[in-house]
């Protein structure tokens, strides 16, 4: 064989050997080794116990994708600082709750913002983050309608909230204001402020319907109201935004009348799905709207509702 022909044969043979090694062995190309992804879930410190279902959803999805979930709580550091430090520490994705002062610039890793207001997103796909939206107006509407059925049109309406920075609170306040111009009182603060307000109510021998616009407030109220039957008598209706197992139990025993919430297990699960889709560059929505549900005592008899609100381990 002429020499140049020989070269061709040799090179061809080498190419076959190479292809074989690539396709059949792990020497050159490794099958996707189960890569452990790091995802940070950032919540406020008090929030942690209130978002157990969310965490369950996140954890279940994490198991599916071999992800290590890292729960970060804020503790007097700003959310932005925590996000920044998480990125510095090599996290692959971040899940965070919407806050009015949330700043996301120069995103290094995909970020999913939960509970942001619908329509809050800049319609630019490169806006920097993925979001799962809650329709706050829808929630407060449903809650209000349920309240309206039992409203005696006379009593006061006390609206409790923890602080105005919580996502969606402004919309809810505006809605309630638009529905009730008089007889409505807004109380912002913690247990102390709430206790004062309730005690005033009791002293003045008035009755009131109570709206609680966030979980912290509901928690504080339950503590106050649960302590004494006297308080309970003065409150004719107790309507809450946001559910935890504790609140649902209170719903069951009659303390709370109705709760508007979303399926937080699903929310957490979806957040992880969105992150993974972004990391793996597969197709997925960058923007999901969660459906609201209004839960009252009857709905706790409904299997479907129960399965969503009490996810199985």
């Amino acid at each position: 064989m002429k020499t140049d022909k020989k070269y061709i044969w040799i090179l061809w043979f080498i190419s076959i050997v190479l292809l074989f090694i690539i396709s059949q062995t792990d020497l050159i190309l490794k099958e996707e080794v189960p890569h452990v992804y790091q995802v940070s879930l950032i919540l406020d410190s008090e929030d942690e116990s209130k978002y157990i279902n969310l965490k369950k959803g996140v954890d279940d999805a994490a198991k599916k994708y071999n992800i290590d979930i890292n729960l970060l709580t804020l503790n007097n550091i700003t959310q932005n600082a925590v996000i920044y430090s998480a990125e510095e520490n090599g996290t692959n994705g971040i899940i965070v709750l919407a806050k009015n002062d949330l700043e996301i610039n120069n995103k290094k890793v995909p970020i999913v913002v939960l509970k942001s207001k619908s329509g809050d997103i800049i319609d630019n796909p490169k806006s920097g983050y993925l979001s799962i939206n809650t329709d706050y107006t829808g929630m407060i509407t449903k809650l209000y309608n349920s309240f309206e059925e039992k409203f005696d049109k006379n009593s006061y309406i006390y609206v409790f909230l923890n602080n105005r920075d919580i996502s969606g609170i402004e919309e809810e306040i505006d809605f309630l204001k638009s529905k009730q111009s008089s007889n409505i009182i807004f109380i912002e603060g913690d247990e102390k402020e709430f206790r004062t307000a309730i005690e005033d109510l009791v002293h003045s021998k008035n009755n009131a319907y109570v709206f609680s616009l966030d979980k912290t407030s509901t928690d504080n109220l339950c503590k106050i109201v649960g302590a004494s039957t006297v308080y309970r008598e003065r409150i004719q209706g107790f309507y809450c935004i946001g559910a935890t197992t504790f609140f649902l139990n209170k719903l069951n025993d009659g303390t709370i009348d109705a709760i508007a919430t979303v399926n937080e297990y699903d929310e957490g699960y979806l957040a992880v799905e969105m992150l993974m889709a972004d990391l793996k560059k597969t197709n997925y929505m960058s923007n999901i709207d969660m459906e609201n549900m209004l839960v009252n005592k009857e709905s706790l008899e409904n299997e479907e509702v129960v399965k969503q609100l009490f996810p199985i381990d």
Partner: protein
Amino acid sequence: MKKHSFLISMAIFVIIIIVSFISMMSRVAPPKKNVIKIGLCLYRFDDTFISNVRQEIEEYVKEYEKEYGIKINLEVVDARDNQNTQNHQVERFVSLNYDVLLINVVDRFAASNMIETAVGAKIPIVFFNRKPVDDDLNRADNIYYIGAGPKSAGIEQARIIIDAYNENPHSIDINNDGVINYLLLEGEPSHQDSLLRTEWVIKTLQENNIPINKLNGAIGNWERAQGSALMEEWLNEYKDIDLVISNNDDMALGAIDAIERANNITGIKIVGIDGTKEALEAINAGKLLGTIESDKKEYAKAVVEIAMFAIGKSSLPEDIKSKLLDNRTYDVEQIPRKK
């Protein structure tokens, strides 16, 4: 030239193959390795004492981070009182390459599975509050146990009663018949805390010649609701209850719940152990006679420091080191609390 063009095209072909697979390799950067991952496995989230300890551990981790400049990811999981679930949780942590595990084991006789998994992966375990059997603890050098000594707890609990009795017998012996009728609320069967706390509180009372008489006793499994249910039954059954001795605060609070529901019952003294926040509040409110508080801050510090020591990130602080027995077990300080 013909010869060369073949060579060149072959070479290009080979280069293309190499370049294409390099570019196909994973784009995701692996996380930086200077983050320590700690797994905290609790037997039940809704055990108040455990919950308190957990909060302290979280606090201490944050302090540790500041002091040593090491980033720590603490992941907390709830086994829901199911050992299998906990085994799965431990397996998962191991597969995610966690550095050290803090385990509050569900079934103290069934720790060998998780020990094998962790030891196989060379991951140290710090057990706390629920003690595995000695054979399991001694399996490897990097297995530790931290707990609040049940014996001393029992003794101290007895001491609260003794002191109160000595100060004013009538406060304990309500009907002044010279006999203190007591009910015993016990924790989980076969839990070392239940056994030892019960044994030593009774022993100490007897040794100090307190005239106790056991009306009844039952297993409340550390749970407030069960304590409450049992107490309710007993309130119906017995009319001369003086004292309720409870192995822990949750059950004691349950007993208090039952008494409050019954409305017209006063005077029964109740003692617990743990020193949970709710118990301390109850003491202030005069509902609970006293409790034995384990220094939860010390608890947390011991757990975290020993864990970090076990993975070689820092050396043990003196106060922890001095109390570490056999390089393995640590007894947390317990302080009586009463009004």
